[in-house]
């Protein structure tokens, strides 16, 4: 059901037009990767593999991406990406497709 819901959410034409999955994957591994590691096993920032993220739901994780974690080096990505993109990245990390 969850993936259906995501499809339903992301399937709206306006959002689908804005999303570039290849560019987002590249962003996750290359740019998130500068702190979390290219393979997302962690670095200065924490491990982002499925088992370590298990306590997050999609919306919660998207909100961490968008608004950052105050008091840590995790910056808010909201100036650089849309809500739909953050949700896409959260889903990408939580399904383990990123590994």
């Amino acid at each position, binding site marked *: 059901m969850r993936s259906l819901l995501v499809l339903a959410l992301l399937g709206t034409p306006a959002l689908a037009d804005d999303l570039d999955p290849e560019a987002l994957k590249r962003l996750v591994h*290359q740019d998130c990767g*500068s702190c979390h*590691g*290219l*393979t997302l096993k962690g*670095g*200065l920032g924490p491990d982002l593999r499925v088992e370590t993220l298990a306590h997050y739901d999609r919306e919660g994780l998207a909100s961490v991406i968008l608004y950052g974690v105050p008091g840590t*080096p995790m*910056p808010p990505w909201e100036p650089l990406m849309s809500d739909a993109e953050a949700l896409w990245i959260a889903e990408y990390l939580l399904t383990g497709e990123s590994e």
Partner: protein
Amino acid sequence: MKPLHLTLAALALAGSAAMGETIATGDLGLVIERTTGAVLLVDQSDRAALARIEGLGDLSHASLVYSPDQRFAYVFGRDGGLTKVDLVERRIAGRVVQAGNAIGGAISDDGALVAVSNYEPGGVRIFDAVTLEMVADIPTGSKTIGLVDVPGRRFVFTLWDAGETWIADLSGDEAQITKITGMGKNPYDALVTANGRTYIAGLFGEDGLSALDLWDEDPKPRQVLPGYGRGEEPLPVYKMPHLEGWALAGAEFVLPAVGRHEVLWVDARDFTETGRTATHGQPVFAMARPDGRQVWVNFAHPLNDTIQVIDTVTKQVVHVFKPGPAVLHMEFTPRGHEVWVSVRDADKIMIYDTQSFEKRGEIDADSPSGIFFTARAHRMGL
């Protein structure tokens, strides 16, 4: 008799081949290809790639140091791999996976020991440069950053979580550790000056840096530029700056600010601020050309397609250009006539003349990041 005859012939052949093909490594270098776990052997004078050496593991954020004879490189991978690469035979000469998550390394002044800085398990491990056997394990209980070599077979490194700097003296049988507390909140990287005297740690958790005089019997941290952010809310930092490419231009340091689009100028003698230059974005590297006349600056995502060149006399930006998407690193030729720039998302290394800023060449490379010329072998703290 025949076997002996053949053996002698083979020896003679091998001998002449070795004599005939002397390979000089003084103008060679290695480029990290971060996504494929390879390094590209390059020739600075020919502006060309010579060979690709594969099988080095996860090379995101990888760096390397050279043996004193400039034959071997020790490559520090993110996955904890320490790989010894033979530039002459163009092959891996040894490899150990020494930790789960590593961040960089250094080689001792005598070339005998290679130290690796680890995030997981946090600490520093020290290896025999010939055999890669571990000779010392220094757990810190903290992510370690800013590992450098200093004279007297010593290494200096800093603890991200604990805000301490440790000096490990390997001149005797056992590692002697000196711990210096109170370096500040979340030091993210550090540099040492070319004479090995001044160690400066940049802080992420507060506005400012901390300096140590390593010539002091009992070094104490000294605040540098406390409150340089003037209490303003820091801008988001999408990539942590590096201090490895620190710039000592004349009598001043040039350092990237954190959470501000500026480089900061600091008097090298008394650590007071001597100026600021507004930049295009969050600086990642601020690197002085070897003569100190220019400082080249690249930037964090999403402004990482641009380089600015600052004149160190006027502190003004004198040149701006866009080499391409995701400029990750810059390396000057030893006397600074050219600079090599890795442009990750263009899969290219671009080469520029530093006087005219004209492009001199380009080399294909797969997601290139760090560029390291062998001349680094003869410099401290790199």
